[in-house]
């Protein structure tokens, strides 16, 4: 049984997947803190789904990009569980897990994660012949820029991720090829994360709980300012 943990945004989502059956998924958007919620959610879900701790044989975690603090709570929790239970851990990039909300979709999927100050972490995916293809890997750019790029490509696009809230109107009014995913698919969900992780697990492509870190895609502001001030590259 695979346990999946998703805390990269305001959504708290945990799921259990076993033999292609989604045994349980608990997804809550109530603006509560991940720190207080996450472990109780996992404990509640196991109890309600009648799953024993020792039945869990792998752990998937959403590694970002997203809220730095949210990612660290998810990773610290998942790494702690993986270490204590001695089970494999798999870190999945959040946008990839979100593309799994749309398995088999005809349209391309554009995941927009809020990167603050009008910017988004944007990435584009496409399903073809039962496989997920990366059309554009995660880049940070202004929302308007990614919309321009996609409009020029002339393909049907479905948007998801918390980055759409800033540009909701722009997307809807922008281009007839654009649409916004419904509320059930617009958010990161642990069930989809589990599906994405399963592919890697089957290939024995696993991570190490000692070394797995968030995929921030952005350095801290202090590092950027330091380099600006000193005119040289900073090595930490």
């Amino acid at each position: 049984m695979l346990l999946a943990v998703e805390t990269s945004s305001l959504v708290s989502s945990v799921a259990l997947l076993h033999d292609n059956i989604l045994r349980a998924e608990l997804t809550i958007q109530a603006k509560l803190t991940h720190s207080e919620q996450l472990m109780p959610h996992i404990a509640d879900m196991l109890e309600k789904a009648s799953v024993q701790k020792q039945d869990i044989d792998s752990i998937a975690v959403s590694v970002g990009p997203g809220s730095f603090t949210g990612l660290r709570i998810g990773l610290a929790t998942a790494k702690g569980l993986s270490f204590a239970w001695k089970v494999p851990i798999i870190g999945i990039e959040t946008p990839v897990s979100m593309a799994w909300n749309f398995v088999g979709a005809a349209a391309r999927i554009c995941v927009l994660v809020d990167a603050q100050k009008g910017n988004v972490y944007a990435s584009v995916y496409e399903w073809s012949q039962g496989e997920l293809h990366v059309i554009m890997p995660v880049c940070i750019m202004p929302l308007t820029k990614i919309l321009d790029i996609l409009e020029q490509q002339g393909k049907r696009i479905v948007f998801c991720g918390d980055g759409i809230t800033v540009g909701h109107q722009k997307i809807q009014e922008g281009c007839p090829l654009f649409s916004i995913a419904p509320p059930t698919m617009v958010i990161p969900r642990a069930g989809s994360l589990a599906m994405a992780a399963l592919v890697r697990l089957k290939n024995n492509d696993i991570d190490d709980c000692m070394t797995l870190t968030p995929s921030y895609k952005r350095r801290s502001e202090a590092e950027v300012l330091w380099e600006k001030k000193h005119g040289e590259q900073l090595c930490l």
Partner: protein
Amino acid sequence: MYTLALETSCDETSAAVIQNGRIILSNIISTQVPIHRKFGGVVPEIASRQHIEYVMPVIQEALDTAQVDLQEIDHIGVTYGPGLVGALLVGVAAAKALSFALDKPLVGVNHMEGHIFANFLSHPELEPPFLALVVSGGHTQLVQIKDYNTFSLLGQTRDDAAGEAFDKIARVMGYPYPGGPQIDQLAKTGDPEAIIFPKALHEKNNFEFSFSGLKSAVLNYLHTEEQRGNRYNVNNVAASFQKTVVETLVEKTMDAAAYCHAEKIAVAGGVSANSALAEAMETICAEQGYAFYRPEPVLCTDNGAMIGCRAYYMALEGHFADLTLNARPSLAITSY
């Protein structure tokens, strides 16, 4: 009984295994000081990033060094405040996961209480009651330790912590972070009577501290001298400033000791590693008949061992946390 303890409140990622509360089987500290030095102080986001990278390796190393299996651990202690929220959250989340996964009780530890309890690790014979002076980069407090779980806060700083003033003054004089040890070193060859700096809240039985006025006075002195084109003597500035801090700390501690009829006095926290403070406290305690305690240097800085010691005494009385435990950046000293 084995305690596994985690500490990630500021710029050290640490894990320790403690036996029966007092014996350190391992105390692994991964320090970030060289990283934050580049920025002249702790950068919270960078600290959090370092913690998530090192938290599992330090736990593994703590268990390996102690030669204790994770399954043999009786309870898990973790610092949940005070400290940097993003940094605390890493330790808290990891500890909760271990506690849940292994069905081992979780103990949420106050970082400042941990500093005080470092004295139990360095001094096996020490027992409460005693008076503790806690001095660090973020705190300056006088705490009465009545027993292992009953404390009374006699007073604390109204503004800057003593360690904060050390760091700031060292930085303005051009010395790298952390400034405390630099000032300590410079002061050794300076004249402590060279410059008179002001002391605040001087009245008897006032156990509150204030170091912002002193800090401003030293900074003003430095700026004025610079503007006049004078080259000031860094050793004399360091010695005069340090003397003012140490005298204030010693006076108030002695005052508090008399007030609460203490027989033993302990210092704790990063600034307790300061040699002038230790010397002054030792001398006056010897003169006035108090037993004086100070943790060994490695236990003065942030470390998992002290958190483990505190967690053990909480666990003995059943003070456990549940899975909703959250980081509390401005947690106060608590009694049970």
